């Protein structure tokens, strides 16, 4: 057994962490398990792909340094992050906000489950179910010693995740809107009474969650492939990471994401790739049995 699984697990874990941050925020602030989050990841990747094709007609499309992608993908990714955030906002406006006003949280879960299948099937119709890639270029993996090899794209994924997690942490702990978000997650009624604009907090949460989902989707597209089911296949790892870390905790989601990623790649090495998706599920069951509040969570 080589240590390669550590590198692969960290890369997969980083993407899981980014998705799980958005999921844990919507879960704790809007108070429902959002099954569409995985599909926001897929939409982010496809939006980036489409925009990059358009931008590629104007900007030179050569790749940057050792990476497999060029400036069009970077620019498209940034715009797509905004668009995915807006897609999440549109879903909220059309569906979730209306159901939140009357009806219980569990109705929101049914609605999100339905919306999730609709979103994914729409991608399947628009782009066909066959996988696509951002770039066909082959990347030479860099040996890091001890038999571990990583591609430049994988290193980029890890670096970008670290930056985004840092930014999120600062936003939530130092900025006004971040403090307001934490207040709403603690107690929405009380937050409203002390003059926090709860509607603005909800909007920000969707925008952030959508943008991070898009970033995770682009990274998944760079290091694996783009498929309509890429995000929904990630849903179980995302929930496992968010619950393992403790619902509402951003550091928890990051730690949870890394643990899930590492566990999956260790499991793939030990029992093969066929049962990969079951590993996150087993982790989830273990957490629910042993410590349902998660590592950093307070609410059961």
């Amino acid at each position: 057994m080589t240590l390669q699984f550590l590198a692969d697990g960290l890369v997969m874990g980083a993407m899981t962490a980014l998705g799980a941050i958005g999921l844990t925020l919507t879960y704790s602030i809007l108070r429902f398990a959002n099954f569409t989050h995985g599909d926001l990841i897929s939409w982010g990747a496809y939006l980036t792909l489409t925009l990059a094709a358009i931008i590629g007609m104007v900007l030179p499309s050569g790749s940057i340094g050792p990476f497999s992608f060029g400036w069009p993908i970077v620019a498209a990714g940034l715009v797509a992050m905004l668009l995915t955030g807006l897609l999440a906002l549109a879903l909220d406006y059309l569906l979730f906000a209306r159901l939140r006003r009357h009806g219980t949280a569990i109705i929101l879960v049914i609605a999100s489950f339905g919306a999730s299948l609709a979103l994914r099937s729409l991608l399947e119709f628009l782009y066909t179910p066959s996988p696509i890639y951002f770039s066909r270029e082959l990347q030479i993996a860099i040996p890091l010693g001890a038999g571990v090899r990583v591609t430049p794209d994988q290193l980029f994924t890890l670096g970008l995740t670290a930056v985004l997690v840092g930014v999120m942490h600062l936003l939530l702990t130092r900025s006004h809107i971040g403090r307001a978000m934490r207040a709403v997650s603690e107690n929405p009624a009380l937050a409203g009474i002390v003059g926090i604009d709860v509607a603005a907090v909800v909007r920000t949460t969707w925008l952030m969650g959508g943008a991070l989902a898009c970033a995770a989707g682009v990274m998944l597209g760079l290091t694996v492939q783009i498929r309509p089911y890429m995000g929904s296949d990630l849903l179980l790892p995302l929930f496992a990471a968010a619950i393992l870390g403790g619902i509402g905790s951003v550091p928890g989601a990051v730690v949870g994401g890394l643990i899930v990623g590492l566990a999956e790649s260790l499991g793939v090495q030990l029992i093969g790739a066929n049962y990969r998706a079951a590993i996150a599920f087993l982790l989830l069951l273990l957490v629910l049995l042993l410590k349902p509040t998660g590592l950093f969570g307070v609410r059961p």
Partner: protein
Amino acid sequence: MMLDLLSYGAFFLATALSYAIICLGLNIQWGQTGLFNVGVAGFVAVGAYASALLTTPAMVGRFGGFELPITVGWVGAMLAAGLCAGIVGAVTLRLRADYLAITTFGVAVAIQLVALNAQGLTGGPFGIGFIPRPFAALAETPLAFELVHLALVGGVTTVAFFALERLVRSPWGRVLRAIREDETAAASLGKHANFYRLQAFMLGGSLMGLAGAVQAHFIGFIAPDNYVPALTFQVWAMLIVGGSGNNRGAVLGAVVVWGLWSLSGFAIGVLFPPGQQARAAALQIVAIGVMLAVILLLRPRGILGEHRTISRHVVAATE
């Protein structure tokens, strides 16, 4: 021509009613007890595979193949799916409602993985064939076969329907609704909420398993692709459209949604060239998803909705 149409009508209704059995199972879980199950497809799969293993002829390299009678297969399907629901319920029913949703989603994924990969048990991606069809001797005359089959599925649905109606109106059914509406109040009357929830979850799961077995013996062949999340989603749409909490609603919803599904499939066959049809089939799911959202927004009670349960003492006092 007339006979073909009649034969198709019987086939359509039999399929719709097999969905109605799943829908009745979901209604006891969600409609009566408020338990959110997103893993419906998994429980249907367990029933289908269990019955297939019990009744098919033996095959080299695969477990099972006991060639038992079909009725034994169906009972086995109910037991297997009920047991599966019992395990899932025992782990998660004490947690928040949405954790049950996430866990059942995971269960369906895990069952799908076993169906795909455990070749020695499930036949892997190729599934299991040669599942005995009831009244196979009639297969020479399609109309008679479809009609007898409709009678059989209709009979199973009717028995399930009346048994559930009886249960819902029994003290047991009232406890379920009491727990759904106000757990603390029910607990203060000495009702062990989680134990009742577990019973309802297992009963619903075993009905889903029975429906899976009925469908498997109808088609004679099963494969992992039959049990994807889209199936769960169809059944949810059926229950919400028909009216959750109402057994008539569950059956009506199954027939209506299956009708719309077949119609839209027919429309795609006419509107799109053959090469594009597989792709266009994705639009069917989009349409059902939008319909589900619209119903939830505009008519959350569904077509029939739940009957209000009012004590006859209250009724007598207000009159």
